[in-house]
């Protein structure tokens, strides 16, 4: 069920099918990122693929006919045209063409007609059309998914393709449920269903209906999670430094060494990272400290090279040591930068306030605290705005809320117009009117189980003030597993499976409008705690607070604002 492994399988299939010999890989922008997040460059080079080229950036006309060329591209119109042009003037000896998704017969014909030099050996379609970030997490790398609250141009098709590729690649034939109040989720569900029906020949068997489920959610139901400050290593790196295709740029960090200007932060390629990505901030500091101590111990051992046997030991342990020193300096730099940002922007205090606001219920103290933070010049503009946004979402229905006061405080700070606009856009995007779930647990509970659950919440006590919040997704998953997810809120697309008692074992959750690393962590914990269950999370993209705000901005573009007038 691991999506990372599914993509890896496909890549190694491509490489092995073309027989030994040196090879070049010709990819487009997106497929490059698909491969590079799951495999290190040196790993691919070990398998005789030495060169990489972008189909849309073929600069050099140098003829290298002794090379075999593996083409791995998405089946888009532009790619087919570029490929046809390439085949008319082939620069390499033989071509093995793999499409990352279903390709139409007419496109194959177009290519066949272009191949006058008979260089093509293989034309196949695979189903690896997504970024597999972790075994249970995939992204379509599409930050802007919706325009004016409707599927943007081509976004629906891309989403259907990506999601279908996950289902095909893992041989999942699911029943589909979607969030009832979201028109986009419904459209997507129907399209997916249609695609699965037309491509049913891809499935070996038609069973697995009962225990597999595709659940399509909409980000609008939980606008809070992407706004909260996160404290796990993975989420912090993304929030504060920004992970792009598994890479983090540290070029802006002062005094950074040249080889650390851009570092890989991908759990598939960095073992230390994969082990520590879910650790909390404090724990990371401790781990890094241990790491450095260990390194220094080894270094002092290294420096004592006197006898012959010392020499021998040195040579033998050297590669491992070198690898370690690379790991250490990378993570020390990253954590150092994180801690600097946390310190200068006062993120601990902000986060505490955020968590109390979202999880607690004390209105007046929170309001005071927010006023204090919003007026504090040390707090970044964007953090101040996010605090007000969270307050607005949390206390939207509270008659005694003081939005007016907060907005005027923001204005006094000279917050840019964009943010003020965003504040009201967000209220339309994810305000109480556009949500169907009880996000803050403020509604009057409908049944006994919710009451009990709420009481139990307090029972175990809270360990950490900064990580009180649990995303809505967790609740949805728990209800789903217990078979209590209401059909009214999450109806089936098409007929519900006949045996409704069977609880799903394999669940693919897709969040229209992007997932977050907090949700990824939740799914990871959920999987670890529920043996036999496999939950995979996917999203249009993986959001940080700023990318989420961008997507809200474009989603609400051209929609008149109703909820909040400023």
């Amino acid at each position, binding site marked *: 069920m691991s999506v990372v492994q599914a993509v890896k399988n496909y890549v190694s299939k491509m490489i092995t099918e073309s027989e030994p010999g040196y090879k070049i890989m010709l990819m487009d922008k997106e497929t490059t990122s698909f491969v590079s997040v799951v495999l290190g*460059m040196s790993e691919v080079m070990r398998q005789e693929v030495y060169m990489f080229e972008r189909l849309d950036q073929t600069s050099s006309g140098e003829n290298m006919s*002794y090379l075999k060329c593996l083409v791995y591209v998405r089946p888009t119109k532009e790619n087919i045209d570029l490929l046809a042009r390439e085949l008319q003037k082939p620069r390499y000896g033989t071509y093995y063409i793999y499409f990352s998704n279903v390709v139409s017969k007419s496109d194959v014909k177009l290519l066949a007609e272009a191949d006058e030099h008979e260089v093509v050996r293989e034309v196949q379609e695979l189903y690896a059309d997504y970024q597999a970030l972790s075994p249970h997490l995939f992204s379509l790398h599409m930050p802007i998914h919706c325009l004016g609250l409707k599927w943007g141009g081509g976004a629906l098709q891309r989403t259907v393709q990506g999601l279908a590729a996950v289902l095909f690649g893992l041989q999942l034939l699911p029943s589909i449920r979607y969030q009832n109040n979201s028109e986009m989720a419904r459209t997507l569900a129907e399209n997916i269903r249609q695609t699965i029906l037309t491509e049913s020949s891809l499935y070996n068997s038609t069973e697995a209906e009962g225990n597999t489920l595709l659940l399509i959610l909409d980000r609008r139901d939980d606008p809070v999670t992407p706004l909260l400050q996160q404290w796990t290593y993975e989420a912090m790196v993304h929030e504060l430094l920004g992970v792009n295709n598994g890479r983090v740029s540290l070029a802006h960090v002062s005094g950074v060494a040249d*080889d650390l200007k851009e570092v890989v932060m991908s759990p598939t390629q960095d073992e230390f990272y994969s082990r520590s990505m879910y650790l909390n901030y404090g724990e990371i500091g401790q781990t890094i400290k241990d790491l450095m101590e260990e390194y220094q111990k080894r270094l002092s051992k290294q420096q004592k090279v006197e006898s012959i046997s010392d020499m021998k030991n040195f040579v033998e342990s050297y590669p491992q040591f070198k690898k370690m020193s690379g790991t250490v300096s990378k993570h020390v730099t990253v954590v150092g930068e994180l801690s600097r940002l946390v310190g200068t922007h006062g993120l601990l205090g902000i986060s505490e306030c955020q968590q109390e606001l979202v999880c607690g219920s004390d209105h007046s103290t929170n309001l005071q605290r927010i006023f204090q933070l919003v007026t504090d010049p040390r707090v970044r503009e964007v953090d101040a705005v996010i605090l007000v946004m969270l307050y607005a979402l949390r206390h939207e229905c509270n008659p005694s809320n003081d939005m007016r006061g907060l907005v005027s405080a923001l204005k006094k700070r000279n917050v840019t117009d964009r943010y003020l606009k965003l504040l009201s856009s967000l209220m339309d995007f994810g305000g109480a009117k556009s949500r169907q779930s009880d996000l803050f647990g403020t509604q009057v509970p409908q049944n006994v189980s919710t009451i009990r659950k709420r009481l139990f919440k307090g029972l175990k006590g809270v360990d950490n003030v900064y990580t009180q919040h649990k995303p809505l997704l967790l609740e949805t998953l728990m209800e789903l597993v217990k078979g209590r997810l209401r059909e009214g809120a999450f109806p089936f697309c098409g007929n519900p499976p006949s045996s409704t008692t069977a609880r799903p074992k394999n669940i693919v959750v897709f969040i229209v409008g992007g997932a977050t690393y907090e949700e990824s962590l939740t799914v990871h914990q959920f999987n670890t705690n529920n*043996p036999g269950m496999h939950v995979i999370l996917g999203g249009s993209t993986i959001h940080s607070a700023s990318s989420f705000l961008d997507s809200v901005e474009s989603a609400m573009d051209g929609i008149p604002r109703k909820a909040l007038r400023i």
Partner: protein
Amino acid sequence: MSGAELGNGRDGEVLEGFLCPFCFLDLTSITQLQAHFEEQHESEDKAVLQSLKGFLNKAKKKLLNEDEPDFVPARNHNPFDDGAVEYEPNNPWNWDPPPLGPSRSHTALFKKIRSARIDSFVAETNKLLIRLDKLLKDLPSDPVKRKAHERSIVMWADDKDVPLCPFCARSFNLARRRHHCRLCGGIMCNECSHFLEFEYAKKLISPVHQGSMVQSAAVNVSSGVGSSMSSLFSGISGLRRSGSQGSLNSLLSVMDSMTTEQNFRICTHCMTRLQARDNQVEQRTSKPTLSMYYEKLMEYRSQIESLLPQFIRMAESLSLRDAEELRVKILKKGDSLNSMAQRVRNLGSSTGQDIGDAASSHVPPSGPRQELLQRRIQSTTTAFLKEQILSLPKLPTHQELKEMQERRSMDSRRMFTAMFKLRVIEYAEQTHNCAAAREFKVSKKSVRDWKKLSAQLKLLPKNKCANRGKCNKWPQLEVEVAKYVSENRQNGYGVSRGSIRIFALNLARKLGITDFKASHGWCTRFMKRNDFVLRRKTKISQRLPQELDDKVIEFHRMEAEARLAAEKEATRRAEARAAEILRRRDRDSRDSPRSTPSRSSSVTPPSFSSLKKRQQTEEVVVDTGWGADSSAHNVTETDDPMIQQMNIIRNYIKQAREASRYDDVPLLEANLRELQEEYKKQQRLMNP
């Protein structure tokens, strides 16, 4: 990935961990096992449940001294131990790898469409070639006769039918005259016509060319057409053979008489057809030097790859002599692989040509992308060597082996039954602690510890291993107290230790338990057993360790120092080397001006040892993220110390010139020349 490998080794291993006694599910912690048990097996025998609970409580007491295993790896484990992650089958990283997903082949369809199109091209091209052959045969040298000859073979199109040039679509007039393609008879203007050199035409219809063409055609063309085609080709080659001598003679005579007209005028269309054919044949027959080198390289690599597991098996089974032999063999193979990689790297490279490398002199200089390819091949091979060969397990000597075994038996934590411990104690009392430790192969400390506990051990059942403290004496009472606590909490009342103890004491009185004191210790144990927490909200876990900042600064300083030291070392060595050469040169000139003493000793043989040395200065390649190769040509960084030194001396020369120290310049130049010579020698050694 380690996750996948871990996932594979599940079958057949002894199951251990928190297993449910009914369904043998592995649950990761006690709490979960208990929850699972209560949820799934409620209907099962209550007695089993009770006994399980009792057992769990005991086990829990022991285990909870450590941290409850959470989903995160324990904080204090060594981050460098590979594969040290505990095996958690539910962790997504350890999920069973999925089988290869489906794929759909369009190759058959593609080939069908392609061959339908290609067949017509092939026929057309063949027609052109036959005509070309006929044209070349007995070509008259006189232009008028030649024209007649050309027209007798190819029907020329009528001038009237073609008012415009079909290629540039401009009208013909006095200045732009009509010309005929000699191969298809079509009309075009002068600007649009191509000229087919006789030499090139000869090459196109030469027997080598044809032979390979027949083969390829037989392969490519679908069966029905294939037979007729090949018969057609054999016809051509027959023709060729009979006429070759004649046409060659005529050609020569033409060349003698009129040097201007050694070509046929042909149209663009025919030209592309012929060129495409030529390229195709060229590709099938020629094989660049690089390919040959590379094949050899991969051969070595696969040999090493096949030898390695054999060696590791031997090393593990401790058949030391054979293993040593094999080790030497692998190292030798590594040497030749390394030198092969060097050769690939230097093939046609600019540095190689600079100093006139013998091996690459006949190879055309490679383009920037080929150079990149060569560099990548070399670096991958070096990485392979580093990983595979340098990390070959060291073979222990016999003595080490023995020590190792002993140490292992001492170190490993074993369990001893009470009976065994009593036997040890008895022996120790008869002799002394040391003797007992030696005799039973346990540490002295445990003997001492057991002696202290001897009274307790006597009370234990004989086969019990551990004395793990008290168990829950009043199960019924605790169940009641637990119920009280959770009820209170659910109703929103706070519960403190004090209230728990008071309630328990009252309850004990009610139940008639007399020896119950509701002590502080009992309360702690009770809360642990029932997983109650009276914690307050904390902020501590979010703080970074206090000394982290100092550590980071210290680390950076240390790193910078290491870098500086490495640089200093490198320059020092280079200078020392230059000085040595200077010295040697002086001595040479003093001793005998012409004779050159054998310098091979100073030249480091390009062997594996040099690779090892070089690693000390080489920066480690952290696997940085990657995309396509944006700019093909990067600045080549030489890592050969010789070239570095040459560069250093070149810099010296430049400096000397700038400082107008002209006396030094000739001396330094002589040094440079000498170095270059040595480098050449080294290269020759490397590429015999």
